[in-house]
C-alpha cells in the first residue's frame, strides 16, 4: 500500500437484491467516488481474465463465481455470497484499482479489446428453460452461437416475454454489451 493520495476514496454500496442467476446469492451495485475509466487500460493489463470493451469503456472479470463489471462510476456484481461478501468484494476492487493506479508508471496499459468468457458463463445467465423457441436444441447451444456472434440475444423468447425474467434480461443485456456480442 502506498502513502500517496488514493485514486478512489470511497466505494458505496447502493443496491442489493437476490441474485437472478444463482439461488441464495446476491447481486449488488456500488458507486465509485471517481470515474474509473482512466484506470481501465491498466486494469486490462493487470487483471488476467479481464474482458475489456474500450469503445464502451467497460471491464468485466470474474473472481470465483462472482461476475464483476466496472463502468464509469459503477461497480456491478453478480453471484456474491452474501452481504459481507459484497463488502469484501468492494474492498478488493477498491484496493485493486488504487494499487493499479498507484503503480501505473510500471504497468504497460493495454487498449486492446478482449473477450474472455465462456459459453458456460453466458449459459448461466440464460433462463435455461430449454424451450427451443430460439431454434436451438438447448440453451447451452444457444450460448455457444451467441458467443460466436451467430445469433442475437433478442432471439431468446422467454427473456423477452413478460416479467418473469425482466431482471435477468437486464443483466444479460449488460453482459452482451460488455462482450460486444449481438444484442
Amino acid at each position: 500500500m502506498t502513502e500517496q493520495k488514493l485514486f478512489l476514496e470511497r466505494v458505496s454500496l447502493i443496491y442489493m437484491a437476490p441474485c437472478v442467476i444463482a439461488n441464495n446469492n446476491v447481486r449488488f451495485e456500488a458507486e465509485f467516488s471517481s470515474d474509473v475509466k482512466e484506470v481501465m487500460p491498466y486494469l486490462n493489463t493487470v487483471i488476467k481474465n479481464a474482458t475489456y470493451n474500450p469503445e464502451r469503456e467497460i471491464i468485466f472479470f470474474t473472481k470465483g463465481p462472482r461476475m464483476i463489471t466496472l463502468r464509469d462510476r459503477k461497480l456491478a456484481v453478480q453471484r456474491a455470497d452474501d452481504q459481507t461478501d459484497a463488502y469484501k468484494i468492494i474492498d478488493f476492487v477498491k484496493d485493486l484499482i488504487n494499487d493499479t493506479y498507484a503503480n501505473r508508471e510500471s504497468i504497460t496499459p493495454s487498449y486492446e479489446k478482449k473477450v474472455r468468457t465462456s459459453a458456460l458463463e453466458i449459459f448461466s445467465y440464460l433462463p435455461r428453460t430449454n424451450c427451443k423457441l430460439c431454434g436451438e436444441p438447448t440453451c447451452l447451444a444457444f450460448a455457444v452461437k451467441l458467443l460466436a456472434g451467430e445469433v442475437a440475444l433478442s432471439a431468446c423468447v422467454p427473456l423477452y416475454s413478460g416479467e418473469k425474467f425482466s431482471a435477468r434480461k437486464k443483466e444479460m443485456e449488460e453482459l452482451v454489451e460488455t462482450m460486444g456480442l449481438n444484442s
Partner: protein
Amino acid sequence: MEKEIYLDWSATSYKKPTQVLDAMISFIEDVGVSSGRGAYKRAFAADNIVYECRKEVARLFSVSDPARIAFTSGATESINLLLKGFLQPGDHVVTTSLEHNAVIRTLHRLKLTRDVDYTIVHCDSGGHFDLTDFKKSVRPNTKLFALNHASNVIGRILPIRAITKIAHEHNAKIMLDTAQSAGSLEVNVAELDVDLLAFAGHKSLLGPQGVGGVYIREGITLATFKEGGTGSDSKSRTMPENLPERFEAGTLNYPGIAGLKEGLKYINSRGVTSIRKAELEVIKYALERLKALEHLTLYGSGNADDTVGVFALNVKGYEPSVVAHTLDIEHGIMVRSGLHCAPLAHESIGTLDGGALRASIGYTTTKHEIDVFIDALEKLR
C-alpha cells in the same frame, strides 16, 4: 475530596475515547436506520459501519476473514452461543476455577439439560495452575477446553498457549473468554491456536455496553443460539449456513457497533503492545504499593508480568462492601466488592464467604490515581 477516581475498568471502561461517543451520535443522527438488503443507500451505510467494525475486530485478533466475526449483545451471550452451539450430549469439557459465571453457569445448565459434563481444574491461591492437572482432567469424550485469558477477580493471566497445546493433543477445541484481556493484552488467534473466542465490547475494547462478539475458526460449524430474521435466505425455516448471518438474527446494536468500531480503531492504531506496556507500568507500581500495606490482604500472584490490571484485596477488620462504600463516599474512588460473578475464584483465594474488594485500571489510569487510592486505604487502618 479530589476529583473522582474510577477503578472499576474491568466492569466497564470509563471514559472511552471521545470518538466513540461521537460515532454513536453520528450514527443516530445521520444514519439511524437498520440493515440494508433490498433497501436504500442509508441502510447500506449502516451495514458498512458494521462491516468496518468487523474488520477492526478481525485485525485486533489477527483473523484474516472478517466474516468469521459475529456480533452479539456482549461476552455473556457470546459464551452462551459458543458453548451451546458447540457442545453435544455426552461431551465433556475441561474448565478452570477462575471462570466467570458466564462459563460455569452455562456449562452447568448444559450438564443439567444436555448430558454435558465438566471438570474444573483448580489453581492455587496465587492463581497458578499445574499444567499436568489439565492433562489429568482429559477424558475420552473431552471435546472442549473453556477458559478465560485473564481472571476478572485476581487479574491472573492464564498460560493459554500451553493449555491449547494440551487440548489439541487430545483433539479437543479451545473456547477462550477474552473479556478481561482483549484490548489490553495481545490476542492472536493463530499464535494462541484458539478455535472459538468470546469478547466483550465495553471493557478494554472501549465500546459502549450492549455489544460483544465471537470468533469461530473456519471449519467449525456451530448450532444456532438465536433464530430470527436474516438478510438472506428468508424462505428457509432454518438459519443460513453462512457466517456471520447465521449468528446475527434480528436487528443488531448499530449505535453500539458504531461506537465499538472507534474504540477498536483507537486500540489498533495505538497498538495493543504499546497499551500493555503503559498499563504494565501502572500495574507494577500498584502491586508494589499494595504489597507494602500490611493491613491489607492482596490476592493473586503479585507479579505484574502475569497480571492484567485487576487487583483483589481485603482490608483487615472491614467487610469489603463497607470499604467500597467508604472509598466512594469519602474519597470519590470507585471500586467494587463482592464475588464478581466468579465464586470459584474466591474459593481458590479463600474469600468465598466475605468476597473481596476489586480495583481495576484502564488505559488512562495514572500512578497518581493509584497514590490517591493507596492513601485512602491507609486511612482504613
